[in-house]
């Protein structure tokens, strides 16, 4: 008769709650994509069945987001780059920075391995996409990819 009703305290069992919450946190940490800051969510990508899952092994990438009007949206800049001259200057600057970064890493040739990733809005005209590609090539970049939303065969 030592179990006195008035002295007993009801403590909630927090262990399963904590387990579940930690599992949720782990799930979100795993699916969280920290490269999202370079990815403009307003850009609705075109659909493609043959698109391969994005290669995340590429460490040096340059995201170029083109909005529905074909303007180049650059992270950190309020206004999009509209003219071809502005885009060219921006890309040459990026190439120069990538070259310097390569030299800093010990590559004396300064060979730029940056992959230019074009994320074009599906409603954009083709001309701006091609112009950006051409400017990137003229700036010196050698690798590029187009991004699309993968459509699974039903």
């Amino acid at each position, binding site marked *: 008769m030592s179990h006195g009703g008035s002295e007993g305290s009801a403590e909630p069992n927090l262990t399963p709650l904590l387990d579940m919450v*930690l599992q949720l946190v782990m799930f979100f940490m795993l699916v969280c994509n920290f490269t*999202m800051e370079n990815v403009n969510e307003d850009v609705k990508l075109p659909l*493609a069945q*043959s698109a391969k899952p994005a290669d995340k092994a590429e460490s040096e990438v340059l995201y170029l987001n083109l909005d529905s009007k074909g303007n180049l949206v650059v992270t950190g800049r309020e206004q999009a780059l509209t003219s071809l001259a502005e885009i060219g200057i921006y890309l040459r600057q990026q190439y120069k920075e990538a070259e310097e970064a390569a030299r800093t890493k010990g590559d004396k040739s300064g060979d730029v391995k940056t992959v230019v990733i074009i994320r074009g809005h*599906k409603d954009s005209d*083709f001309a701006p996409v091609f112009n950006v*590609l051409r400017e990137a090539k003229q700036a010196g970049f050698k690798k590029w990819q187009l*991004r699309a939303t993968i459509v699974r065969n039903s």
Partner: protein
Amino acid sequence: MFCRRRQADAVAEIVLPITPMLDMTFQLLTFFIFTYHPAGLEGQMDFSLPGAGSAPAPEHTEIVCPPDVAPEVKSQITVTLKAQRDGLNDGLLSAIIVRPTEGVEVALTGLPALAKYLKDRRDSPRGGAIDDVQIQAESKLKYAFVMEAMDTCVQSGYQRVGFAPPPDLN
């Protein structure tokens, strides 16, 4: 006195402070819930660009090789995509014109027809020689259609797809 201390050690319980840990965990959970945007799975499409100053595929290519060497033909198909410019459906795909390096130019009605053409050509005895597809889209064509055409080419078995400058681009 020594015995009394040992008794006190045995009674002492280690209390883990759950509350701050739980607080922090909930804060992390809230952060991830608010920053999580389940978007469609993004994939990559590889392609090639023409060299500087390159022109569209030539009308006729003559390949000369010694008789004892099997000809390694690298031919190309140019797929021209035309855009509608009627003021109502501007930018939609209006016509597809396929021009192989050797062979006749063919006008197709849509992407399923393009897929059929490419598959038939691929399955033909000379299909093994066909390497590249070059997409030449008009500048006002919506990018989505260009990607659809590219997708069609890749699905038809042509892995090397590239872009040619739009014919109407200044």
